[in-house]
């Protein structure tokens, strides 16, 4: 039973190494593109079953965004980013639960000399690079939204507050907090997905039949909750950034 913390490289494109979680996230992107195309084929005022399904998802996300942001105009502006985050993360998490992910692989000789199995596919968010990328994109987007909403000067005054000694230190702490949020975003998502993978591997190793079922349910649930938490936290930070106190 081999567990690798880092995603294993399975190939190269030019000089760029391709990992197995990258491959699954590409598959997820292609899957989402096909879904989006399928959803836009027949759009009518009285929805058919397919359109109803996609409308339900969008309505759920829109209501979530509205309940956090509490402003219809702001929701319309920031909805694309947060909806994409949710749909992308949940697709990656759930695709990582399919049979074959993590089990179908190539036998290789590792650095220590013994033979390990390198899986061809691995859950997209089980790679810290991926979650770090999502976190950096989200936090940069929060800063950009804040500056776009209330102006550079007012936004900078949140972090560089010269109206008093204590306020100045609080501002510096807020600035450090932005970087801490990147770390916390990425580690929360990575830790949950990777720990879930390890849990499933260990349970399947111990008892192969029936016992992994409740853990699969748990992983489905965790995949949904982590996507929702990432989205809601992004919304809360956006709300904090576009407010003028």
């Amino acid at each position, binding site marked *: 039973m081999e*567990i690798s913390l880092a995603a294993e490289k399975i190939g190269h494109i030019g000089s760029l190494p391709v990992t197995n979680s990258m491959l699954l996230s590409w598959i997820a992107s292609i899957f989402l593109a096909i879904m989006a195309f399928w959803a836009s084929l027949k759009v009518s005022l009285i929805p058919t079953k397919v359109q109803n399904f996609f409308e339900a998802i969008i309505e759920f996300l829109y209501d979530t965004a509205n309940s*956090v942001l509490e402003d219809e105009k702001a929701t319309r502006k920031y909805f694309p980013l947060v909806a994409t985050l949710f749909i992308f993360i949940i697709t990656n998490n759930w695709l990582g639960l399919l049979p074959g992910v993590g089990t179908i692989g190539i036998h290789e000789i590792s650095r220590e000399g013994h033979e390990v199995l390198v899986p061809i596919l691995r859950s997209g968010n089980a790679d810290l690079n991926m979650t770090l990328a999502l976190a950096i994109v989200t936090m940069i987007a929060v800063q950009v939204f804040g500056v776009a909403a209330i102006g550079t000067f007012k936004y900078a005054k949140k972090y560089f507050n010269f109206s008093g000694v204590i306020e100045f230190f609080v501002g510096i702490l807020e600035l450090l907090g932005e970087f801490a949020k990147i770390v916390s975003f990425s580690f929360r998502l990575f830790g949950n997905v990777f720990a879930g993978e390890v849990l499933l591997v260990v349970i399947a190793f111990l008892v192969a039949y029936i016992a992994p079922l409740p853990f699969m349910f748990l992983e489905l649930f965790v995949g949904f909750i982590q996507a929702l938490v990432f989205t809601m936290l992004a919304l809360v930070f956006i709300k904090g950034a576009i407010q003028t106190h």
Partner: protein
Amino acid sequence: MENGLSLEIVQTIASAATITIGAIAPAVAIGWIGSKGVEAIGRNPESAGKVQTSMILAIAFAEAIAIYALVIALIVKFV
């Protein structure tokens, strides 16, 4: 017999201790948050939506600490 403990033994013990101790505080915190949240909803059922949103957010923040401990435990064991 070696002098002292081998690296594997120390790795295993350290990794187990990290996640065990590191999950105590988040577990207590999540229980606290949940209880206060449910109490708030009970007092004022109309604010259930807002309270629920804040409660889920606070639980996510608290759980992240446990996840940090888990990641350190995994790093110690497998790297």
